[in-house]
């Protein structure tokens, strides 16, 4: 075959990469082989720009059973149990077709979890959109949320948490990051390994069509004017099929029928085939004529690159092939032997009697190009207008009001400002979103969406799991390294407030074009900040995902790492709500000695978290809520609002005077937590022993929220009126 420059560029393969391919094969590749290399060596699958940096992340710890390198990370939670969890991006597909893009993103991350043998028991998602008043954004929000609901609800996994953030930089590049977590016995973990020469390689699940061919390459390039032209790639999700696949896979696993298994996600049959071979040091031979096909006359190229959803590849012991078929047929699924494990380390593909590809598995999976791309700090970060009020980013109309109040704090109507803040897109109640998600199925949800961390009990034990997603984008854009530390600190703080101990993290690194030195600099800084913080909190990173090329017409998004943190709550009775519990409880503010903004002192933060964790263990705490965007006023208001199980409770509070009323009410200073208790004295004493400031703010109770400042009532508002503003914020915009 004559390989033209044009063909190479269509495949996103550079000159030098091509020379490397020819060197590996010692001949020119076939078209099918070129396609295979192009997806496996794409940014999305090979991590060619990020790999050198990701190595710096801490990945080991006493609880870690499996770090990066498999389909998901795994940690030990005691009682003989383990959890597998991971986060993945589906940004590009969700822009092209919001509903199906988001739906198949959920489908993909769920497969990553159950392919390891774990039953998914919780899902979360982190979403970024342009400002909600934009008509196109409305459509994307509706589609993305609808798609996540469609897939997760039908599959039967509770979607228990996540984030929704609006900012201008995501208008053309919405971010959809999906997280899933599953549970299993720690002696029943499955890996994606093609072991045992001569064993059958079995294809299960949906038939292959021409869906999403080149999805991985699409996610490895920015959008130009022609984003629409890339549309034929769209895959359709079938959550019903995936639910059957889950049940059938787990049943086959528990019967001991499966030696190795991997889902077909990005790069489909190609990726699962060569990765399973590479991990086991074996070859994999496939006959494409046996692959179940939905469409007529598919070429080898198309079959190998198809990203049809809801498919898995597995290797079984040859003596048990028939039993595998029986399990899958019981669940009404296709299961077909499409090849064998061989000893020669090659991915050998036959079609219509001919060999159409023959490539060393390791060359595809492990020996992809690795780039040390140039780094350069950007000339300027986004202006620091919102350092104290990051929630204003993306709300141009509100921004003026608050910046004016910041400059002239004296003569403002703070009732009005608090209502505006509470109802602003980034702070408003996200119930419009999560009410569409089934967050209760599996009957484990103790704290669902809306709390600091989601908490689900672990049936058969006294324990619960806490989990959260955090990605303070504006902060990170301003200062990538400090922002990344903040993200990790905040994620851990959320776990601690719910009564848990953070154990390990996963992360999704959403960035612009890695060929821009500024973007690579941001990336490198974020990795360093994250590493430092994860080391401090003893929360190793067990896996994650990198999404580059979130750019349109040369405009990169903010660097947007999203941290997924998982922790354990040792006893169900320690689960702590973020909302106030009883009238009469004392409200305390605990904080570090110095008041920081936009950065975090990790050691002090750790002392704060240790103090709160200890106080919860000593049963001194009735509620704990961490302060973040919107500051003290918004945090207290949120703790007052009603939730499913409790009416609203007002509060009367004295706001400490420090930097002026507007800043003291709404300023986002780091490392602060509000606690309620019946034992304020004991708590204050312990806090002081730990070197922390602990202030008596006031009491829970009444129908009003009263915030006193320097002796007068800065805020004095009916809690119901405030809550209405908060609840109506999002529905009104959408």
């Amino acid at each position, binding site marked *: 075959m004559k390989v033209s420059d044009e063909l190479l560029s269509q495949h996103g393969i550079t000159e030098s990469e091509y020379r490397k391919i020819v060197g590996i094969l010692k001949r020119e590749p076939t078209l099918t082989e070129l396609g295979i290399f192009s997806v496996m060596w794409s940014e999305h699958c090979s991590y060619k720009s990020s790999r050198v940096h990701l190595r710096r992340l801490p990945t080991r710890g006493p609880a870690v059973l499996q770090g990066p390198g498999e389909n998901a990370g795994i940690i030990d939670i005691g009682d003989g149990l383990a959890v597998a969890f991971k986060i993945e991006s589906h940004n590009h597909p969700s822009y092209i077709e919001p509903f199906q893009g988001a739906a198949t993103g959920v489908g993909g991350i769920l497969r990553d979890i159950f392919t390891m043998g774990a039953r998914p028991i919780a899902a979360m998602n982190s979403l970024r959109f342009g400002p909600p008043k934009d008509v196109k954004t409305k459509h994307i929000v509706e589609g993305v949320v609808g798609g996540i609901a469609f897939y997760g609800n039908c599959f039967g996994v509770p979607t228990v948490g996540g984030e929704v953030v609006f900012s201008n930089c995501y208008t053309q590049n919405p971010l959809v990051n999906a997280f899933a977590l599953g549970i299993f016995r720690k002696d029943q973990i499955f890996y994606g390994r093609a072991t045992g020469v001569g064993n059958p390689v079995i294809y299960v699940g949906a038939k292959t069509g021409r869906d999403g061919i080149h999805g991985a390459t699409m996610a490895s390039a920015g959008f130009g004017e022609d984003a629409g032209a890339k549309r034929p790639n769209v895959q359709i999700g079938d959550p019903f099929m995936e639910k059957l696949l889950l049940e059938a896979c787990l049943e086959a696993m528990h019967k001991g029928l499966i030696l190795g298994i991997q889902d077909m996600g990005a790069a489909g049959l190609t990726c699962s085939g060569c990765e399973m071979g590479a991990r086991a040091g074996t070859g994999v031979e496939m006959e494409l004529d046996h692959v179940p096909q939905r469409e007529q006359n598919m070429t080898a190229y198309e079959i190998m690159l198809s990203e049809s959803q809801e498919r898995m590849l597995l290797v079984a012991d040859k003596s048990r092939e028939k039993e595998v078929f029986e399990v899958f047929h019981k669940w009404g699924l296709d299961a077909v032997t499409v090849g064998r494990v061989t000893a020669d380390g090659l991915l050998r593909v036959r079609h219509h009697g001919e060999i159409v590809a023959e490539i060393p598995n390791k060359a595809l999976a492990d020996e992809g190009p690795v780039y040390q791309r140039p780094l350069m700090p950007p000339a300027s970060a986004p202006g620091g207008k919102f350092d104290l009020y990051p929630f204003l980013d993306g709300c141009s109309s509100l921004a003026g009001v608050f910046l004016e109040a910041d400059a002239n704090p004296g003569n403002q109507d703070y009732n009005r400002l608090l209502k505006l803040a509470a109802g602003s897109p980034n702070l408003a109640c996200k119930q419009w979103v999560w009410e*569409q998600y089934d967050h209760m199925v599996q009957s*484990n949800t103790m704290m669902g969406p809306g709390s600091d961390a989601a908490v689900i009990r672990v049936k058969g034990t006294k324990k619960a799991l806490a989990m959260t997603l955090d990605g303070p984008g504006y902060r990170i854009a301003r200062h990538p390294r400090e922002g990344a530390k903040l993200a990790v600190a905040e994620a851990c703080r959320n776990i601690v407030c719910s009564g848990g101990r953070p154990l390990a993290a996963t992360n999704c690194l959403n960035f612009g074009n890695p060929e821009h030195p500024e973007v690579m600099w941001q990336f490198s800084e974020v990795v360093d900040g994250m590493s430092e913080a994860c080391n401090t909190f003893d929360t190793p990173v067990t896996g994650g995902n990198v999404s580059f090329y979130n750019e349109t017409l040369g405009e990169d998004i903010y660097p947007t790492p999203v941290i997924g943190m998982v922790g354990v709550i040792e006893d169900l009775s320690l689960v702590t709500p973020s909302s106030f519990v009883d009238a009469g409880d004392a409200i305390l503010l605990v904080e570090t000695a110095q008041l920081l903004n936009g950065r975090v002192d990790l050691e002090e933060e750790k002392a704060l978290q240790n103090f709160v964790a200890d106080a919860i263990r000593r049963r001194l705490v009735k509620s704990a809520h961490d302060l973040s965007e919107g500051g003290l006023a918004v945090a207290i208001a949120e703790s007052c609002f009603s939730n499913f199980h409790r009416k609203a409770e007002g509060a009367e509070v004295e706001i400490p005077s420090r930097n002026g009323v507007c800043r003291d009410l709404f300023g986002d200073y780091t490392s602060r937590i509000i606690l309620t208790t019946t034992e304020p004295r004991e708590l204050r004493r312990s806090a002081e022993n730990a070197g922390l400031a602990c202030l008596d703010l006031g009491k829970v109770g009444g129908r009003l929220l009263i915030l006193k400042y320097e002796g007068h009532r800065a805020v004095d508002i009916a809690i119901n009126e405030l809550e209405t503003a908060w609840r109506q914020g999002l529905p009104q915009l959408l």
Partner: protein
Amino acid sequence: MKFGVVIFPGSNCDHDCYYVIESVIGKPVEFIWHQDTSVQGFDAIVLPGGFAYGDYLRTGALARFSPVMSAVGEFAQQGGLVIGICNGFQILCEAGLLPGALLKNVGMKYVCKYLQLRTETAQTPFTNALSKGQLLHIPIGHGEGNYFADAETLKRLEDNGRVVFRYMENPNGSIHDIAGIVNGGRNVLGMMPHPDRSSEAILGSADGKLIFESMVNALVTK
């Protein structure tokens, strides 16, 4: 006394129902596979929530053709206790074991939340531990829970006290705020809200447990 929980392809509250019966109310329970043709040996049958057959075509439409449904039909005919929760309710309607149908929510969206349910009658084997007018704190999670029946059917339901539960605040457009009904024999209940998700205080409410306990009472005195 033995409960059976039917598993259709796509059921996803099957394990939740099983857990409540086994671990919360402490009664024997087994799964029933949708291909089974007999339900012999069971005293009460649960059609759980979920998305049987993906809810494709219409919710419950394809599930009603599962072989087990003829057995469930006969079981009901003979007076056996059958409860359909959420998707189970939809299946019972499609199968003709309960009248009416469940349409898309008027808001067009799936809704998952807690709400207040009013008990309209204690005169059923599913509500004998409740009193008329008693409010239950219980969640819903559905996209198609908008109950519809023609005027004549509705009148029959109302006149015979067959509306078992009503929403205090209608979340989906259901006619007459109906959340749950029984058949003429009062031994088949369909309800959209989830007692299986609200049978333990740590999950926010234990009110749903009263429905399962009523069934146990009914079976004991039978």
